[in-house]
């Protein structure tokens, strides 16, 4: 995780994709995924085209394929789930090598795998090319309530601080010879979690004091209102628009 500039998926760079305003990118990725999800699963070739579009975007962002592919692992649990579907789904069945598989289940597997993977890949690409700060500002510009953006920004800012506190508490436990091995030790761990909550809450109160002391009255001052050019929107829209064309073809063909 990590606050401020870098986060786990971010990959520093100066590509045209990095340079796009965050809210354009968020909107583009969201629309792209939405289009992908709406595509009929029978249009196999459409998903191939989507993958090609993403590959183009990744190339423009100068994100290496290896980076992108390893980050896709987050999807693994659902792959496991999807792979089981042919066994449990109903409807006509086909027999492959002694296994009885449901055709609609196979389609279901394909559907989830293809759409899920494209979705994760698009999100990874977004996260890889956008700084955390920009992401939050982008969300705010997309009319996410400012209070929600503030909460998210505080969560990011203090995520590390609190994780650090948790780590220190663990070291303190270890140094006193305590190592949680099983259920019997849950009480001790829960006490740590409780203490962590109290510390977090109290820190929240202190942060609030510090903010009020500097003139905070409930709204964050909006600092930079960089304007977005039409060209930037057009460039960001290229991905979802191309996808939309593919999707429409998928429905009509």
């Amino acid at each position, binding site marked *: 995780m990590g606050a401020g500039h870098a986060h786990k998926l971010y990959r520093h760079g100066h590509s045209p994709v990095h340079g796009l305003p965050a809210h354009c990118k968020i909107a583009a990725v969201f629309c792209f995924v939405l289009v992908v999800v709406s595509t009929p699963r029978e249009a196999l070739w459409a998903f191939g085209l989507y993958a090609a579009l993403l590959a183009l975007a990744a190339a423009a962002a100068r994100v290496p394929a290896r980076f992108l592919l390893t980050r896709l692992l987050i999807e693994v649990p659902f792959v496991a789930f999807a792979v089981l579907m042919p066994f449990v789904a109903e409807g006509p069945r086909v027999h492959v090598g002694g296994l009885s598989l449901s055709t609609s289940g196979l389609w279901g597997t394909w559907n*989830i795998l293809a759409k899920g993977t494209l979705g994760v890949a698009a999100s990874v690409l977004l996260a890889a090319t956008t700084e955390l700060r920009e992401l939050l500002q982008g969300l705010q510009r997309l009319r996410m309530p400012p209070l929600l953006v503030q909460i998210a920004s505080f969560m990011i800012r203090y995520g590390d601080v609190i994780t650090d506190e948790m780590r220190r508490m663990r070291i303190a436990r270890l140094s006193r010879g305590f190592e949680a091995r099983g259920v019997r030790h849950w009480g001790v761990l829960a006490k740590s979690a409780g203490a962590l909550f109290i510390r977090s809450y109290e820190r*929240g109160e202190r942060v609030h004091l510090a903010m009020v002391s500097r003139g905070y009255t409930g709204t964050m001052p909006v600092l930079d209102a960089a304007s977005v050019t039409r060209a930037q929107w057009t460039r960001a829209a290229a991905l979802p628009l191309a996808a939309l064309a593919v999707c429409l073809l998928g429905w009509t063909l």
Partner: protein
Amino acid sequence: MGGLRNLKRRTLMHVPDGFINAPVSLATGAVAAAAVAVSLRGARRELAGTGAGAVAGAERTAPLAGLVAAFIFAVQMLNFPVAAGTSGHLLGGALAAILVGPYTGVLCVSVVLLMQGVLFADGGLTALGVNITDMAIVTTVVAYGLFRGLVKVLPRRRRSITVASFVAALVSVPAAAVAFTAIYALGGTADVPIGKVFTAMVGVHVLIGIGEAVITALTVGAVIAVRPDLVHGARGLTAPLELRTSPLAAPADAPAAAPEAEPVPAAAATAPRRSARRIWLAGLAAALVCAGGISYYASASPDGLEKVAHDQGIDAKAEDHAAKDSPLADYSVKDITDARLSGGLAGVIGVGATLAVGTGVFVVLRRRKSAATAEPAGPGAEHPAPESV
């Protein structure tokens, strides 16, 4: 932190893109947005200052909710080892609702989900509505409703808060699974029959719920022991002030003075509480019957608990069988026959746990009732001595 193992558990309920069709995804997105908007208002009230300085709630919302979200985020990474390298962790919906209130709870869990989706590609962007609806809204609302209900009917003790937290968390997780099934029924993209999804999801999540319940109850108990004022769900439950009768006072005065010692709200609340209690009891019974029925269904139709349930639940089972010190461990990673067996046993454990909790609640209630009949004799009888911190 990282590691695939850890990751796997975290994504158990994070629905990816493509799992639910576009119209239902958008509809749940609207539901989630509306709920978050309502929560934004509610949270201001919940987080309004009680302590130093009369400060408006709006000012405190961002820092406090942000820090609580960071806490939920961190505590999800705290591993509770079960045995042999397996470990469980908290989902946090119930905990957040009990500690900071339902609105703030919804807000914090939603923000955590949002950040996980945007920063870690964990849970699809279009599935964000689905994820927020079942993991942030359903868990917190169910947990808080149940918690408040239980707190009202149980005796005013700290132990009751722990019991209520346990039950609330226990039910909240399968409730989320039920919500997920409902969403799936509306917009699922695969042809897996609803019955199977239902048994698989709910059966597995009853088990996860047990782990969640134990951890939540212990954590709430730990906070209550140190800073009871910080537990939102326990507000208004502060023990009435204790009066120590001076030996110098005339003995005739003592019984007259004692009832006055009770703070007004507590005294005033006694009568309505009694009548409201019946309603709450009925609600509680209904909830318990539901929880029991779900588990029963899961165990009564082992055919339904097929490999999906089994595989999806590997972690959960590994966690929970050890929690019960049962011999289930050997069954959880083998093939289909064993999967059914373990699925069936899982259901039985679910029923057993629900029944145990139910019985416990009723035993406590009966004791409370007999204590209540003796209540007029002395108000001191039901109030525990002030506990040292």
